[in-house]
């Protein structure tokens, strides 16, 4: 017995001494502490596509273009640009930018970055955002020319997400090392990465623009929302992500902290699989649309943070038609239609979801459909399985599904094309006329004509109901009252746009 | 004369000792090392010896619960090693065993009647009704009330449990019973009752016994012939009276001298 405890003590002592490093306190009042859900998967801006990485690396790297707080596309590395033809754009590159190691950022680096991310061999998860770019080259005058396969009006919206990496350094360090200790040109420099714990950034005092007030910033991984709330209220962190309206209510009730929110370009919707028995009847799909009370969802459940929408877009998108209401809430009409459909409407419908989504909404939707007489069974699986099921052939995919779509481009093409075009694996619609509409809207360079095309598509959706648009999702953060910051629709955390109040 | 029920010829039972990483057999424990004797119908052969002398292993080997390493065991003159499976099953019915500890010899969750009827069931003897009647008879035979059948072992005293074990051993009408220290664990006043029962059964049913014991006074009382064993070998063998009156081997004499006299 004594022997056992003695051995254990010895083992623990050994463990403690080796742990002295990671556990050493780094107390520092000048740091901004942000609690994310998870740690970044990678800090190579071309190698991942997820919010927790995005939040961090956007502060390390500059992009070709960016959006201001109002959501307008503005210059960053490119100071100005010129549309040479429908398929060619020439960018002028800022000449006063240096990477964190001191080397200057050149047009070569811009071209390298474009080629790197568009190379299928490289395997970037962001490939499809940029695959319309067919060529990038440095012109004789030092400007950069990008060529697209066809006219591509969403190009600028996509380029907002293109981070510029230093060619020489990346090639020298190699992929793995660069991933571990990335070097960019942004307002913050990579400092440290304690796996599973936190990523530390320090301010780039040589930044060409405004680097913001924080000498250092720490992004921590705190998976449990309740724990993030506890961290914030106890003062252990200054800003936390991933709040929902109920947690926001908790923050409201606590001293010194508040929820901060913004409407995003994320649209929540109920997808309806037109290829399944019963649901192949447009009347039943219409009935489903009539059964959903968006206002109640938003007001009753989502605390009014979100914004009901009647089209598969948000006001933050190009392609949003002001005043288009979509299918109205009308349970009586829904019941009437269901009665008309008769027997095929009586089978139980499967409703796929994943723990990632707000389960209250899914259950509320189930209830609403139940109230008009449909039987709906929720099938919750983890996200990977959910995605796999959603991507399976339409005939095997679930009857209903809940989704929250973001293209991170604030352009209708990024939403409607993948969700409705028959070539897309995300779509369960196979309609030739619609395909033509989507294709022309995608490459139409005249904004008014383009808007008109999207109007037609919205009408088609309202008639055919492949999806029931629900609401424009809000993103809710919890922030210390000391922190001054207004979140934007594109869900970015730009440290240099934040500050301490007083 | 008649053939012996059991005839043991140069019986050897060796247990391997394994050692080393590969578990090679490096030596053997010679538990039984050359034992021979005959058991005639209606007679009692006793095997005496101290712990570790190999007397119980001999009993198990005769019973067939332990494979001999060498030597032969003849049942009614026929070598068991050459019997077919069904013949073996048949010989099994002719030999039965009573263990030392009546507690572990009975399934604590089975009623006395079920325990007694088990050999009948396994061998598929009679109908359920026949078996019930047989159990009643057996209870009478071993001097237990018929009402005992429905009770569980824990409701009986040690002596009564041993009676149930004996009844079970008699269920298939054996010709010989191997008694492995069958009275050693019993109280003095009960021991004599069970010994008397053995004697009665022998005269009534013509049973033969192989009586394994360390208790020389008990053995002297019940046995016709005696084998004295030590470390796997028989040191002395002969009719009971001869052994007790004129023990030839030094070890037998030591054993006799050690018995406390009343």
């Amino acid at each position: 017995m004594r022997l056992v405890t003695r051995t254990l003590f010895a083992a623990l002592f050994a463990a403690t001494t080796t742990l002295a490093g990671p556990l050493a306190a780094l107390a520092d009042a000048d740091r901004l502490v942000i609690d994310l859900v998870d740690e970044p998967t990678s800090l190579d801006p071309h190698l991942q596509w997820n919010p927790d990485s995005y939040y961090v690396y956007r502060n390390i790297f500059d992009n070709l273009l960016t959006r201001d707080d109002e959501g307008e596309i503005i210059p960053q590395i490119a100071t100005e640009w010129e549309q040479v033809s429908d398929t060619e754009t020439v960018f002028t590159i800022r000449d006063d930018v240096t990477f964190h190691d001191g080397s200057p950022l050149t047009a070569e680096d811009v071209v390298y970055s474009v080629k790197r991310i568009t190379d299928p061999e490289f395997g970037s998860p962001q490939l499809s955002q940029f695959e319309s770019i067919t060529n990038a080259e440095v012109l004789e005058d030092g400007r950069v020319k990008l060529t697209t396969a066809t006219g591509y009006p969403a190009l600028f919206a996509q380029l907002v997400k293109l981070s510029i990496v230093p060619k020489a350094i990346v090639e020298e360090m190699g992929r793995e090392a660069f991933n571990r200790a990335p070097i960019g040109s942004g307002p913050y420099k990579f400092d440290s990465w304690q796996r599973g714990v936190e990523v530390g950034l320090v301010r780039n005092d040589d930044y060409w623009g405004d680097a913001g007030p924080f000498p250092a910033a720490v992004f921590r991984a705190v998976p449990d929302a309740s724990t993030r709330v506890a961290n914030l209220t106890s003062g252990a962190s200054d800003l936390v992500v991933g709040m929902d309206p109920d947690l926001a209510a908790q923050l409201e009730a606590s001293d010194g902290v508040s929820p901060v929110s913004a409407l995003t370009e994320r649209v929540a919707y109920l997808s309806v699989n037109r290829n399944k028995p019963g649901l192949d009847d447009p009347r039943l799909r219409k009935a489903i649309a009539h059964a959903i009370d968006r206002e109640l969802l938003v007001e009753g459940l989502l605390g009014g943070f979100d914004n009901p929408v009647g089209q598969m877009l948000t006001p933050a998108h190009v392609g949003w038609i002001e005043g288009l209401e979509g299918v109205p809430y009308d349970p009586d009409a829904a019941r009437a239609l269901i009665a008309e459909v008769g027997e095929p409407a009586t089978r139980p419908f499967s409703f796929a979801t994943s723990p990632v989504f707000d389960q209250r909404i899914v259950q509320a939707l189930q209830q609403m459909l139940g109230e008009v007489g449909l039987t709906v069974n929720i099938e919750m699986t983890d996200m990977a399985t959910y995605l796999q099921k959603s991507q399976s052939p339409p005939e095997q995919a679930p009857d209903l599904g809940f989704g929250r779509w973001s293209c991170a481009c604030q352009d209708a093409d990024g939403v409607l094309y993948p969700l409705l075009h028959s070539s897309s694996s995300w779509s369960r619609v196979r309609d030739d006329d619609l395909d033509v509409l989507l294709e022309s809207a995608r490459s139409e360079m005249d904004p008014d004509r383009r808007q008109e095309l999207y109007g037609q598509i919205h009408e088609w959706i309202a008639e055919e109901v492949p999806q029931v648009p629900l609401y424009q999702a809000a993103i809710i953060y919890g922030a210390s009252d000391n922190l001054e910051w207004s979140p934007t629709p594109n869900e970015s955390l730009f440290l240099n746009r934040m500050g301490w109040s007083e | 004369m008649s053939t012996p029920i059991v005839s043991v010829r140069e019986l050897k039972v060796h247990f391997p000792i394994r050692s080393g990483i590969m578990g090679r057999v490096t030596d053997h424990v010679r538990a039984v090392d050359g034992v021979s004797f005959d058991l005639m119908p209606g007679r009692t052969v006793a095997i005496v010896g101290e712990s570790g002398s190999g007397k119980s292993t001999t009993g198990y080997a005769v019973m067939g619960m332990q494979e001999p390493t060498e030597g032969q065991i003849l049942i009614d003159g026929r070598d068991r090693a050459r019997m077919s499976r069904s013949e073996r099953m048949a010989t099994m019915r002719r030999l039965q065993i009573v263990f030392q500890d009546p507690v572990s010899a009975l399934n604590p969750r089975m009623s006395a009647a079920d325990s007694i009827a088990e050999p009948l069931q396994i061998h598929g003897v009679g109908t359920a009704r026949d078996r019930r009647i047989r159990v009643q008879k057996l209870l009478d035979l071993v001097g237990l009330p018929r009402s005992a059948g429905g009770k569980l072992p824990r409701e009986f005293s040690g002596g009564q449990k041993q009676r149930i074990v004996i009844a079970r051993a008699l269920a298939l009408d054996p010709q010989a019973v191997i008694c492995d220290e069958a009275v050693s664990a019993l109280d003095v006043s009960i021991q004599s009752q069970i010994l008397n029962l053995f004697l009665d059964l022998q005269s009534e049913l013509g049973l033969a016994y192989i009586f394994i014991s360390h208790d020389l006074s008990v053995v002297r009382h019940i046995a016709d012939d005696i084998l004295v064993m030590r470390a796997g070998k028989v040191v002395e063998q002969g009719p009971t009276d001869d052994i007790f009156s004129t023990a030839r081997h030094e070890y037998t004499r030591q054993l006799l001298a050690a018995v406390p006299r009343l």
Partner: protein
Amino acid sequence: MMPIPRETQAQTPVLSCTDLRIEIGGNPVVDGTSLSIAAGETLALVGESGCGKSMTALGLIRLLPDAAHLSGGQISLQGERIDQLSERQMNRLRGNRLAMIFQEPVASLDPLMPVGRQIAEALSRSDTLTSAEVRTRVLDMLTRVGIDRPEIRARQYPFQLSGGMCQRVMIAMAMIRQPILLIADEPTTALDVTIQKQILELMGDLRRETGSAVLLITHDMGVVSESANRVAVMYAGRIVETGSVAQVFARPRHPYTAMLLRTIPRLDGPRKQALPAIAGAVPDIRDWPGGCRFHPRCPLATDHCRAKAPPLASVGASHETACWHHDRIATELT
């Protein structure tokens, strides 16, 4: 059969108990037992399982299991009451003036400790001995109990020793502080006859050397006859007969003793004949019969026996029996 050492007879008994009662869960297991042991004598307490003989021994040394407790009676050691002593005072007494050995010698030793250290433990608690002195005394004691090469044996663990050897170690452990009373609870039951003889002889030798008294608990009449001076026969929680071994064995005055002696097969008795058995079984603690507890099995029982328990009464010089009909025994039961 040993004669009673004459010079000790008149002295205060080493140990005596009167009207000892022990209960388990409300049932008496020992029901008014009185005993006394003189210095240098061996008293055998004999009886069948469940008669309360081991409980009596454990009660005397106050090591009863949790469920059992002393519910009455007095115990005196050299005239001094010990039944009221505190646990702490008893600890000082045990191993010092009172020692005990048990039935299963191997299991009675801590399997994880070398035997030498276990013997030393009995010594090292109170005395101010140096470790070298302790060592010498342990080795010396091992030699006295007849263990060869004590230096090697002392370092060995119980599992490396035979049962007889373990009992020798137990005896060494018990005798190392020269107790005035050794309680031996079935010390040879688990051993082979040849080893039994050696152990009994060893105990006798040590008793003579040290003058300790011995309380020998056994179920074996043979052991009693060979190694005790006096005997007390127990049945169902009570002593039914007590006296010198010679008297009791030659002329038992209680039907139980008489029948028990006849029922054991003897090396000089008849062979292959029915033994004169005692009918019935030892009764369970929970339903001991009223009156004389032996009456359901007794051929001499009368209504009087069933109604009233006989007291232990003298039937000769230091020979007592608890039977209403002790005068009929000689004629009707032998």
